[in-house]
């Protein structure tokens, strides 16, 4: 895994965060939103390929895992799904790469009871509607800590 270096951009985000924190604490004055950072950002995602990264922590038990690697040029079409080739049980590339295995929920429709043992269900086939690569950016407004 590549080392994360602090770029000028991440530093400026950190500065803004610090400023927000000062203005927020105990202040009776409130103007605008912490999402207005003045940064015209670019979206940069991991460049490391599949198998070269470690899984990301999940938001809560059962949360869909986010994608730790690049998916550039991945194809999800009726005839080909590049995600499945590593993440399914029978995926040829999976052994040795420790790809996160697709869970049983993706093979059984809990509403209709229909099962699809060979391939993930059609309603679960568009992987990118739940799983997405994560940029190195930090949200300017954090979550409550309590």
């Amino acid at each position, binding site marked *: *895994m590549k080392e994360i270096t602090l770029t000028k951009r991440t530093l400026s985000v950190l500065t803004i965060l610090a400023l927000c924190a000062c203005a*927020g604490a105990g202040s*009776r*004055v409130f*103007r*605008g*939103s912490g*999402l*207005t*950072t003045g940064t*015209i950002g*670019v*979206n*940069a995602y991991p460049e490391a*390929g*599949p*198998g*070269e*990264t*470690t*899984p990301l*922590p*999940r938001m*809560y*038990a*059962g*949360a869909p895992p*986010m994608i730790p690697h*690049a998916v550039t*040029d991945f194809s*999800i*079409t*009726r005839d080909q799904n590049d995600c499945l080739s590593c993440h399914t049980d029978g995926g040829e*590339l999976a052994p040795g790469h420790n790809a*996160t*295995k*697709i869970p049983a*929920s993706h093979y059984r*429709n*809990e509403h*209709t009871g229909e099962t699809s043992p060979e*391939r993930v269900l*059609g*309603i*679960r*086939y*568009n992987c*990118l*509607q*739940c799983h*997405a690569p*994560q*940029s190195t*950016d930090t*949200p300017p*407004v*954090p*979550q*409550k*800590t309590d």
Partner: protein
Amino acid sequence: MEKQKITRRDFILEGAMTVATVQLAGGLISLNPFEAFAEESLGALTWNKAPCRFCGTGCGALLGIQNGKIMAVKGDPLSPVNQGTLCEKGYALPFIQTGADRLTKPLVRMKNGRYDKRGELTETTWGFALGLMAEKAKAALQEKGPSSVAMFGSGQWTIWEGYAALKLWKAGLRSNSLEVNARHCMASAVAGFMTTFGMDEPMGSYEDFKHADAFVLWGANMAEMHPILFSKITARLMENRAARLFNLTTISNRSSDMAEEEILFKPQSDLAVANGIARLLIEDGKVDRAFVDKFVVFKRGKENIGYGLEDGFKFEEAAKAASFDEYRAFVSAYTPEHVEKLSGVKPETLKKLAAVYGDPSANVMSFWTMGVNQHTRGTWMNNLLYNLHLLTGKISKKGNVPFSLTGQPSACGTCREVGTFTHRLPADRVVTNPEHRATAEKIWGVPAGTIPDKPTYHAVEMMRALDRGDVLFLWSTVANPFQDYPNLNRFREGALKDGRFIVVSDAYPTRSTAIADVVLPSAMWVEKEGAFGNAERRTHFWKKLVDAPGDSKSDLWQFVEFAKKMGFGKLFAYPAEEYPIPTGQTMSDASETAGLYLERALWEEYRIFGLGHGHDLTEFDAYHNSRGLRWPVVNGKETLIRYREGEDPYVEKGRELQFYGNDKKTGGKAIVWLRPYEPAPEEPDAQYPLWLCTGRVLEHWHSGTMTRRVESLYKAYPHATANLHPKDAERYGLRGGEKIRIASRRGSVEIRAEIGGRVTPQEGMVYVPWFDEDVMINDVTLDAFCPISKQVDFKKCAVRIEKVS
């Protein structure tokens, strides 16, 4: 920044094995990432149902609660909509209410201890904020009359919030100055339904997906904007190899990945494409003449209808009857060659599409949302899509639906069904009709003549009126108008003028709260009891599940308390013995304060409007006890296919098909409209050579207020970028990641260029999503609208771009 290209081949050759370790941050869950997640740890949570807070798909969610906090979410397996799954936004639901900067106290702009428009927002009490609001509203009523007191609401209102706002405004303040952000999103869909069928909302339901043979998307990137509905299309395509998907779009996007063909057309030319298909259907003898003779009439409306760019713009339709032969002559101009000239769509592609619609054995579903609705000819375009289904009889039949998708979770349930627009009343009634007003006045128990008989301002005109000083008091709730409105420079300046009093109710600080005179902290989603209505006419309820932070209050509570201050408390007084608070249930703030079950009282009153009127909603508990029901619900039974005998209880015996919304107008027939192609008001020229199209991305909801406060969603798509075609990038000497300025005649923004991103517009076009507070793209957009629906075209205006060094 150029993206690194990683192909599967590279991976096979170079993908070295990495031993993975899981790094755990505080509070994150420890798990073996290589195994399916052990779900036992979820057992300690209490699971409750609630519809997703976001899009009009209306997925059911199950929320796992512990110690008053939402710990986890799952797709509700009992919901037929999403069948146990959710999209990225749905899985982020536990975090949308817990951003660190939630508003928790009412704020008023103060200087030297008094309200001052140039003061700073200062924490205060509800009593002071509401008192000031009432004072300002009364002053405006005196100075300029009821129309100067305005509310701008939302398709994210719960049904009873919308209903309370409507009652307060139209029966209390006697003002029709009530509008919603759904005007920007669904007005053309409503106008399309009303002009074609005399009744709003789709005839079919999500059940139809599994019976369709072909899906045609018209300017709707469903893979990102309606992900779970797209997954229903995908499921059908995967199980039935013969099923087909066509993606008609101005921008190459993710929905094309599953499609047989991506069909690019030039902005505004969808009008020509639809007419071209209709022409081919007629020429090739694919029109179902028996169907047309029995169930369809033809009409021709006004042409060259303008674009609403001037203040006070008025339009009145004048429809004339037409014949099939006149219709045939009308569409004959749209030859494949002519259509190609206007749209860029090849004649053989047009013929292929006509063959899909014309195949008598194929069930066809068409889908559209903002591409068609946010269009200066949006109503026409809706009409033209219905034309294709009416000519071929592919309507109100299993798997055959022209399906107008809805954007917001309750644009249908609240805005359209309750009628929270300047001209409307519940269940498709209008203020201009004396019978409709009388019905409402009777149900509300207010004197005859209470409801004003003239609409005042539709959404755009309301903001223009604020700028002019005709609206003096504006209350925005569950919306972010000062990020969402087009031509924002004018409206922002208007709102800041002296004498304008702006109230914004929201859960978080936004670009709109930054402008407001008063900011009210809102309880949101499951911090209150609620009801939404989704795109398939499904009404679904939820109970209050967690407490709102600080002094936040639901909009319903806010409306009732404001009503009391204005002297209209009676409108929300119901007998407590009739609507007792049930034991053991956590009540909303509004019910607690009222000392009765206010949501139930409002519901039982509201549903009187629809009973026996084609909009039947059933009693309150039925919705809490189910995963929602699709109206009309008659004798406890929901309706899946409207207008079809045997399916819809409103269809008279022996009629087979009855578009009963048109009973009075056409004897129950649908209307095929003769609607031409007309150009957009502002097209690229030498000075502003590119089209600008705005929209959303999968991860972010509208202006990003909720979704950009969730880590997974923020990180998946942190910033708005300007998507460009590689040839345009080359022409301007741009590489991905470089900063550019996008300028129109109205304003400009700075933004980074992106080439080869998630979407690629066709040449001569730039795409910018509007979720980013740092990229106020609506400073650039144009406030032109469809003269019939008054919905703004956010998809088309002319811009130029330049590199910023």
